[in-house]
């Protein structure tokens, strides 16, 4: 360690100790919130407690929110707020949600614990630094006849006290050096322990998200099946009926009126062609054959080829994701590219696909006018829902004026059956 490092380290630590000390009153500031909150509960009976409770809880949550953010920053982790959301905005519902939320009571318990921890963590480092410095000052004070001053374990009468005091001071400084960066972390850990969502709350939250996404998926699937049923019923099935009719009539007419029979047969052929075209479109919507054949690589390149704009596909995958994920990813890209063609006014687009850290990441960008958002009932919202079924996420960066970049992430593993890597402009 050079002198320079030593000076810098000392400056950093002293700043830390000072800010820690400054946090002490802040830790104490929360204490009045305890009686304020508790006293409002009986007041609910006389109605006035309702706004008061909501006000003081909101204050308490802002207060704990500050410490949550601070601790998250110190520990470099995310500490999400653990609170339950009220089912509606009615005041009584909100009071009930607040009162029955375990997080409210954990917040309450946090206030005294934080006051004690905050004072301890604020005072101790500064005390150690000052105590260490004092160890060097004590001998000087003794020289100026301040004989009554005592220092840790030594006073003016202790043999060798003039040497011992600075040594003890050095020990204090060493301890301060070691402890200063650790003490805020200790405080932050206490904060996290009390303010992070409990395992129970995290699981409850997760169950809620899963239930939501499952309901969405089931709905979407049912709607999809209904659409397929309707398409088959109105399309291919009707055409096949018409085809059967034409053939039957042609059979009847063959002997009597061969010309009319020939016309009917031509009609029948026409029907079969149309039925096939409709089935083909339907199949494309269910599972594009090229996706089955070639995986994402080929399917996305085929998509780019068929797109009205030039689309650059840059894909590096060491294998294929599971079929459902692959399909979801394909349709998400397809839908996004359709949006690009319809709304963006872009002259070109690009698709980038990678698999990193157990996640399939897809980026679709265009040079259009931007301003895209996942509005309810819109295409992007649909994609978001579809991805949610696989724990996937959708992000949109689309400033007005463009460019737009849509990012999707899907957790998945790749089966390393074959290596595919390609890039090129279509």
């Amino acid at each position, binding site marked *: 360690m050079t002198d320079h490092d030593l000076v810098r380290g000392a400056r950093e630590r002293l700043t830390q100790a000072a800010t820690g000390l400054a946090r002490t009153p802040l830790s104490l500031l929360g204490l009045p919130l305890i009686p304020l909150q508790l006293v409002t509960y009986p007041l609910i009976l006389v109605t006035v407690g309702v706004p008061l409770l909501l006000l003081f809880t909101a204050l308490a949550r802002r207060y704990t929110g500050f410490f949550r953010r601070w601790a998250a920053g110190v520990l470099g982790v995310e500490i999400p707020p653990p609170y339950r959301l009220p089912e509606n905005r009615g005041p009584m519902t909100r009071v009930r949600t607040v009162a029955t939320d375990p997080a409210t009571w954990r917040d309450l318990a946090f206030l005294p614990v934080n006051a004690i921890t905050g004072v301890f963590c604020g005072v101790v480092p500064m005390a150690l630094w000052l105590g260490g410095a004092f160890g060097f000052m004590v001998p000087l004070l003794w020289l100026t006849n301040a004989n009554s001053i005592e220092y840790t374990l030594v006073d003016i009468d202790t043999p060798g006290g003039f040497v011992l005091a600075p040594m003890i001071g050095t020990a204090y400084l060493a301890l301060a050096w070691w402890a200063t960066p650790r003490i805020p972390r200790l405080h932050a850990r206490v904060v996290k322990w009390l303010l992070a969502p409990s395992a129970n709350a995290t699981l409850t939250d997760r169950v809620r998200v899963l239930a939501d996404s499952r309901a969405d998926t089931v709905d979407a699937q049912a709607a999809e099946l209904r659409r397929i049923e309707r398409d088959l019923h109105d399309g291919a099935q009707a055409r096949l009926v018409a085809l059967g009719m034409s053939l039957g009539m042609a059979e009847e007419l063959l002997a009597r009126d061969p010309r009319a029979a020939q016309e009917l047969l031509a009609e029948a*052929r026409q029907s*079969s062609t149309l039925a096939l075209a409709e089935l*083909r479109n339907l*199949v494309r919507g269910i599972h594009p*054959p*090229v996706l089955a054949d070639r995986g994402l690589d*080929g399917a996305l390149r085929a998509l780019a*080829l*068929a797109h009205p704009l030039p689309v650059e596909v840059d894909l590096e995958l060491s294998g294929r994701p599971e079929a459902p994920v692959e399909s979801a990813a394909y349709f998400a890209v397809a839908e996004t590219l359709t949006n690009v063609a319809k709304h963006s006014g872009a002259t070109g687009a690009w698709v980038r696909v990678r698999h990193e850290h157990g996640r399939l990441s897809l980026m679709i960008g265009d040079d259009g006018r931007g301003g895209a958002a996942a509005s309810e009932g819109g295409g992007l919202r649909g994609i978001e829902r579809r991805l949610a079924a696989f724990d996937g996420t959708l992000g949109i960066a689309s400033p007005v004026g463009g460019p737009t970049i849509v990012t999707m992430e899907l957790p998945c593993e790749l089966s390393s059956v074959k290596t595919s890597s390609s890039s090129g402009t279509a």
Partner: protein
Amino acid sequence: MRVVLGEDLVLLRDGLIRLLQAYDFDVVEAVDSGPALLKALVDHRPDVAVVDVRLPPTFTDEGLRAAIEARKRVPGLPVLVLSQYVEQLYARELLSDRGGAVGYLLKDRVSDVKQFVDAIRRVAAGGTAMDPEVITQLLARGARDQPLTTLTPREREVLSLMAEGRSNGAIAGRLFVTEKAVGKHIANIFGKLDLPLSEDDNRRVLAVLAYLDRV
């Protein structure tokens, strides 16, 4: 004319065999999987092969891969690929060796027996037979291509039919004009697209397809 047929669905295979025999083709072997198809193509070296894209064992694009592989081993081997759907990607792969003698048609086209048989003969003779849907897609992509936009509607019609691989005579018949008029249209098209006008029909088709594929 000796034909090797690659089709796994019995119904379609029997139908195709019956159809081909009715038009005096000699079906030397009809196989139902990718590996068997590759072997048959290399062993028999037929005058033309009619191949379904999707074949066992993988039920993916096994037929296409076998056909492309066979053409690598037997350069210029005429292959007509049939599929329930058309992908430009596959058309591009088939055309990529610039050798011609390839076809890529929707299975539906079989129902127009005359046209279908004509397409097989064309491919066997070293020509091309591209599905109109492939050409439509290619032309849709070329919507913003400057030279293409200068074509007259009639010239676009001629271009589409030519890209499908049809001869001047066939185009003339379809559009109810004389072959000479078609020749003039073609000269105009090649002028506008700045392509070298070749005497050879097949070369012209390949040049047009290559042009459309690029835009």
